[in-house]
């Protein structure tokens, strides 16, 4: 971990969902740190709690979500316990979010210009004329082609890539300190994905914004973020520099995840998958959540496990404890 004071730190965060089928433990005892200007990728499969973590960061947890323990500290403010007016200043202004489905992010009855101006007017408290100038600047910054037409266009008239550019524009409009991007490229086709990712990376660098990118794709992580955290069943099983994790995965889950990526260079008759079922999110676990699928699990793994620090990296596995 870096030595400078982190911009955002998550301490022992646990989030439960109260549903009709029981209490779902979506996020379990998560510790994470994010420094100013840093980009962090949270990688995990569906249901691993990565999106819940993202929503918690953008302060938009649904009503049935309960923060059982822990805190999210941003600039010495505990976001989960701060007063309403403090939150209003941070939410949507210093912390913004980009969603997965760019078409659904915009109301079908409003033009892109109206959407962006609304954000500028309500969040920056400026006049309509100033807002429209800012909006044009921001759309140029996200390299939107044909800005004048886009401003007057309705969402259905634009392509997914253009809409996602507009959504990124909306997210950087207020010059936020942190952008949370929840699978921003999974709805786009491969060539547009690459463009959007490099745009994000570039903007984060030029604006000095921190980025939390949530994805299930390690390739995306490698392309954009220097740091990565691997999440499984609500637990961060491993974090560290993206390159290190991909070069030399430590946690058995990360190893199996990397092994299951189909490669064009090797001819394999079958795609390798991880044996067994993911952990039932309703279960409480004291040991490693991956133990029931882990090829190198020992008896101790089912009982207790703790983080082990190896250089800059952290792994939640007994294999490395002395």
């Amino acid at each position, binding site marked *: 971990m870096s030595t400078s004071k982190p911009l955002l730190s998550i301490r022992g965060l646990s989030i439960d969902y109260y549903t009709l089928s029981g209490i779902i433990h979506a996020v379990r005892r998560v510790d994470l740190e994010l420094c100013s200007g840093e980009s962090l990728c949270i990688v995990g499969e569906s249901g691993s709690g990565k999106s819940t973590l993202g929503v918690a960061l953008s302060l*938009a947890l649904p009503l049935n979500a309960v923060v059982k323990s822990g805190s999210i500290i941003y600039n010495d403010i505990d976001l989960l316990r701060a007063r309403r007016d403090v939150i*209003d200043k941070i939410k949507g202004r210093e912390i913004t979010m980009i969603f997965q*489905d760019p078409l*659904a*992010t915009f109301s079908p009855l409003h033009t892109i210009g109206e959407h962006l101006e609304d954000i500028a007017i309500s969040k920056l408290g400026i006049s309509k004329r100033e807002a429209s100038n800012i909006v044009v600047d921001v759309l140029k910054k996200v390299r939107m082609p044909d800005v004048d037409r886009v401003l007057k266009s309705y969402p259905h008239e634009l392509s997914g890539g253009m809409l996602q550019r507009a959504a990124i524009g909306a997210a950087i409009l207020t010059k936020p300190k942190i952008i949370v991007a929840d699978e921003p490229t999974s709805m786009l086709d491969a060539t547009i994905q690459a463009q959007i990712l490099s745009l994000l990376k570039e903007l984060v660098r030029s604006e000095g914004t921190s980025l939390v990118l949530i994805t299930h794709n390690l390739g995306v992580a490698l392309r954009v973020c220097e740091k990565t955290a691997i999440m499984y069943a609500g637990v961060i099983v491993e974090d560290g520099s993206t390159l290190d994790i991909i070069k030399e995965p430590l946690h058995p889950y990360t190893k199996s995840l990397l092994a299951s990526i189909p490669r064009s260079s090797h001819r394999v008759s079958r795609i390798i998958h991880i044996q067994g079922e993911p952990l039932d999110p309703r279960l409480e676990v004291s040991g490693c959540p991956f133990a029931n699928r882990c090829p190198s699990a020992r008896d101790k793994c089912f009982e207790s496990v703790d983080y082990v620090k190896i250089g800059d990296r952290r792994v939640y596995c007994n294999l490395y404890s002395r």
Partner: protein
Amino acid sequence: MGLFPCDFFKFLVKRPLYTTGFIIVVAFIILGCIAPYILTKPEDAWGVTYDLNKAFQPPSPEYPFGTDAYGRDMLNRVILGSRYSLIIAVCVVGLSLIIGVIVGLVAGYLAGIIGTVLMRLTDMFLAYPPLLLAVAFASVLGRGVLTAIIALAISWWPWYARLMYISVNSVKSALYVEAAKVIGLSKFTIMTKYILPNSLIPVVTQAMLDMGSAILEASALSFLGVGVPPPIPEWGRLISEGWVYVSKAYWITFFPGLVLLVTVVGFNLLGDAVKEYMNPRLRSIVAKR
């Protein structure tokens, strides 16, 4: 997004069918406004004549729509009737639409206790047959055009409140509402700017379709002896009065019925036009019909 900017006329010009509907509605509104001043036989129209010698005259150059059982000229009665029927239809639907939309929007978006109370209140109104409720209110309030409007609106708004409530519930789970919340826009802004226009479309369409029913419902009120007092001509009354003689003198029912049909078709076309206009996705397509 305004509801009727001049874009609406540009939109209409490209769609002859909707233009027809718009012209019909405008024509009837104008007719309703000037009706008392263009009558050729005002005493027939207001229903003060009583001349059995002229009763049941079939359509002829002198009486283009024929005469009724009391020897009144039907054309004049239909023209004057347009005034009352349109006032009733537009006011009843308009008033119920305003109440229903506000109730449905607030109940749907705020949910919780306020929402439950509002919707159970709506259910209470829905539990009574609408005509019965209207008759009850009309008989308490007394006879007259205004009381007819109030009585009908009271029995009418819960249907729009329900429809709006359902519509708001489907819209409020949309990602763009979620996104607006994450941005931190105020509840009021989200409700009025994003949820209201997006959930209004089915309600407005239904309201336009209801114009005809409102005219008929008003006539049912007068038929039952409450509502608009006789002999004020109102299309519903003209139809129900003539119904008794339909085998002998079809024209008494036929012409008011025809006019009512044309008006309702006009309103329906206008309703479709408004629906299409409000949805930018449909607006940009030029219909080939």
